[in-house]
C-alpha cells in the first residue's frame, strides 16, 4: 500500500555565518511510517529538526505537514527528543512530565494518567515521585522520551534516540516506536546505529553536508546500491588479516562462521573470491549478500557514520559566530 506523503522538507537552506548547514535539502516522509534520517555528525540533521519545530528559521525553503506550513501548525503537532538529554534535576519525574505536557495543552489529570501509564510501560513506575537527578542516564532518557510523546503528537522527531541505551531499554524503545507507528504517528529519527535503523526504518534519507544524497524505502536503497556484501568463510582462520589488503574491500566484519566484507562500488564479488584462492585460502563459505545499510551509507557518504567529528565542530563554531 502506498503511504501518503505528509511531511515535506522542501528545498530548505540554512547558513550559519560562512558555513552552509543545509543546502537545498529536500525529502518527504510518508505518514504513519518510521523514517530514518541518517548522516554523519554535522551533516545537518539537528538543524533540520530544529527548523521543523520552528526553533530555527530557514534562509530559504519550507517545511509542510499535511500541506500546512510548519509555522502555521500548533506546537503539539510535534514531539521532540533532542540529542542532548536533559530534565530539571531537582524536579520530580511525574511533576515534570505533567509540566511538559501542560505546555502542549494537555490537562494535568490526563497528563498524569498518561505519564503513569508510560512509566509503567518503560518499567520505571516506582520512579514517578523521585527527582530526575536520582535516576540513571538510561532511565532519564526514557523519561525524556515519555515527555516527547505524552501530548500525542502527530510527528515525532527523535535525534539519536538510541544513544546510551542498554540492550533491554533499546528493545523497549523499539517496541514503543512500533506501537506509536501502529497508532498512526509518524516517527522521524536520526541515528548512527545502522542496525537499529535497518531493523526499524521503512524509509529513510541519507544526508551529507546539508544535502540529501539518497532517499527512499530501505528496499529501494539496497536495490539501487552498487555496494556489494560478500560473506567469506576460510578454514582455520576467523578473521584473516589479508582480507583488508584485497583491492575493493571497504570494510570487514567478523560474523559466525564467516567474515562479512563490504565491497567498494564497482568491485565484483568474484574478484574477492579469486583473490582469496590466489592466496591459498581454503574457502568454506562464499555468499553474495544484500548490502547492509552501513554499506549503502558508506557508498553515498564515503565513510561510516560517526567517523567525521570535524564537521560537527565546524557547524557548532559557525552557529556561535552567526549569533554574535
Amino acid at each position, binding site marked *: 500500500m502506498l503511504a501518503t506523503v505528509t511531511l515535506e522538507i522542501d528545498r530548505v537552506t540554512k547558513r550559519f555565518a560562512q558555513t552552509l548547514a543545509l543546502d537545498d535539502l529536500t525529502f518527504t516522509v510518508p505518514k504513519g511510517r518510521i523514517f530514518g534520517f541518517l548522516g554523519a555528525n554535522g551533516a545537518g540533521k539537528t538543524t533540520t529538526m*530544529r527548523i521543523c*519545530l*520552528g*526553533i*530555527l*528559521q*530557514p534562509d530559504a525553503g*519550507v*517545511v509542510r505537514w499535511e500541506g500546512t*506550513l*510548519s*509555522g*502555521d*501548525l500548533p*506546537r503539539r503537532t*510535534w514531539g*521532540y527528543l*533532542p*540529542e*542532548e*538529554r*536533559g*530534565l*530539571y*534535576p531537582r*524536579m520530580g519525574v511525574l511533576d515534570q512530565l505533567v*509540566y*511538559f505536557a*501542560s*505546555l*502542549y*495543552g494537555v490537562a494535568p489529570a490526563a497528563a498524569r494518567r498518561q505519564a503513569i501509564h508510560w512509566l509503567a510501560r518503560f518499567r520505571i513506575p516506582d520512579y514517578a515521585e523521585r527527582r530526575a537527578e536520582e535516576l540513571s542516564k538510561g532511565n532519564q532518557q526514557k523519561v*525524556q522520551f515519555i*515527555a*516527547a510523546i505524552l501530548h500525542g503528537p502527530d510527528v515525532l522527531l527523535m535525534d539519536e534516540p538510541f544513544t546510551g541505551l542498554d540492550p533491554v531499554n533499546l528493545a523497549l524503545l523499539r517496541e514503543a516506536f512500533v506501537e506509536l507507528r501502529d497508532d498512526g504517528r509518524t516517527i522521524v529519527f536520526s541515528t548512527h546505529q545502522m542496525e537499529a535503523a535497518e531493523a526499524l526504518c521503512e524509509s529513510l534519507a541519507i544526508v551529507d553536508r546539508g544535502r540529501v544524497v539518497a532517499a527512499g524505502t530501505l528496499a529501494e536503497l539496497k536495490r539501487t546500491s552498487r555496494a556489494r556484501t560478500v560473506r567469506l568463510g576460510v578454514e582455520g582462520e576467523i578473521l584473516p588479516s589479508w582480507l583488508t589488503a584485497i583491492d575493493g574491500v571497504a570494510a570487514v566484519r567478523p560474523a559466525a562462521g564467516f567474515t562479512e566484507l563490504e565491497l567498494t562500488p564497482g568491485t565484483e564479488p568474484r574478484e574477492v573470491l579469486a583473490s582469496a584462492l590466489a592466496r591459498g585460502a581454503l574457502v568454506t563459505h562464499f555468499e553474495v549478500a544484500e548490502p547492509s545499510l552501513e554499506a549503502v551509507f558508506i557508498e553515498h557518504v564515503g565513510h561510516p557514520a560517526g567517523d567525521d567529528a570535524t564537521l560537527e565542530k565546524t557547524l*557548532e*563554531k559557525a*552557529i*556561535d559566530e552567526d*549569533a*554574535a
Partner: protein
Amino acid sequence: MARRDPLFPNAAIVARREYRDRVRSPLFLVSTLILMGLALVVALAPIAIRYLDQQKVDRIVVVADEDALAVATIATANGIMNIPPVGADPDTWTAPFVFERATDFDTAQRDLARAQIDAILHVTRAADGRLDVTFLSSGPVDGVRSQLAGFTALSVGIIDWTSSLPPGSSLGAFRTPDFRAESISAPIEGGQAVDAVEVASRSFLGTVFIILMFITILIYGMWVATGVATEKSSRVMELMISAASPRQLVLGKVVGIGGAGLTQYTAIAIPAVLVLAFQHPIALAVLGESGAGLPIGGLTIGLLLAYGAFFLMGFTLFAFVYAAVGSFVSRPDDLQTLSLPLSLVAMGGYVSALVVLLGGGGVVGKVASFVPPFSPFAMLARLMVSTVQPWEVALSVAILLATIGIVALATVRIYATGVLLYGQRPGFRRFIAAARRAG
C-alpha cells in the same frame, strides 16, 4: 514560517513552575525571615531615633549683647526647655539641655561648626529696642527644639518688656521679638528647613530601602540568569524551546521569579505595616506621654507602596537583561563574566540614590530619577527625602515602563538565539554585539 504563539497559557504555566521552585527553596524562607526582621527594625527606627534623641543632652550656648539679657535668656530657656515630662521621676530625670553663656558670637560659631556645642541662642537688641533672637544649630533644624527656642524668645521678650519700665509707670506696646531658627548645614525643602529628626528617619529609611532594592534586584536578577543558564547546562532547554516560544519562556520566568520577589516583599511589608498601625501605642510605651505626642515621621504606607512599585519595575527591567545574559552562557559558572558589568550598572543607580539621600543630589540626582536603569533607585530616594511633583513621578514611571517594553522585546530575540549556543565561552563584547543585532 515563524510561529506566533499566544502568550497564555504557557507563560502562566512557566511562571507557576518558576514561582513554586523559588518559594519552596530553603534559601527563600531564610532570606524572607531575615528581611522581615530587617523590616521590623526599619519600621521601629523613627521611634528608636526619637528615643535616642531623648537621651542626649544638648549643649546650647547663649550669646547676648547685654548681661541681663543673657541671664534672663538662660533662666527662661531652662524653665521652658527643661520641663520634666508628666510622671517623670525627678531623681532620675535628666534635663535634655544645658545652657551656658558665651560672650563672643564668632567663637561660638566656630565651636558649633566643630560640634563642640549643639546650638547657639543669639539674642541682640535692635536700635528700636526690639529683641532679635536666632536659634542656630549645626545640622538640620529640629522642629521641636526650634519651637521651644521660639517660646523662649517670646518669654525673654516679655521679661525684657516688663523689666525695662520704671516702677509705677504703665506698659507701652509690646513688640514681639524677631525669631529665626537657622542651621549652618540644614537641607531646605520647599523653602523651609526640614525637621532634623524627620530627615534622620527618612534618610535612614531611604538608605535601608535603597540597599534592600539593590540587593534584591541583584539577587532576583541572578535567579533569573541562573535559572536560564541551568536550563541550558542541564540541557532541558532543548525540550523547553520545542514546547514553548522564547516569549512565553522569558515572560514566564520573569513573572514567576518576580512573583516570588513580590511574595517576599509582602511578607516583609506585613510586620512593617503592623508597626505603623500600632506606632502610637509603641511610641507611648517607649517615649512616654511627652515623646509620643511628637511627630514620629519615617515610614509611611505611601512610601511602602512606592518602594513596592519601584522595586517591581526595577526588578522587571533588570530581570529581562539578566534573562538575556543567562541565555548566552552554557553553564551558571560562566555568569560571572557577564553579570559583573550589570552589577556595576545597578551600582550606579544605588550610588545616585545615596547621593540624593545625603542631600547632595542636585541636578545629577534629578536627572538620574528619570533615566532607567537608575530611575527606580533615584526616584525612590527623592520621594523619601524631598518633595517630588506628581508629574515628575508620572514621567519617570512612563519612561521606565517604555524602557522595560523595549528591553523585553530585545531580550526575547537574544534569548531565542542565545539558548541554542553551547560552543565558545561568550564574552561581554559578543553579548553586546548580539544585543545590538536583536535591537
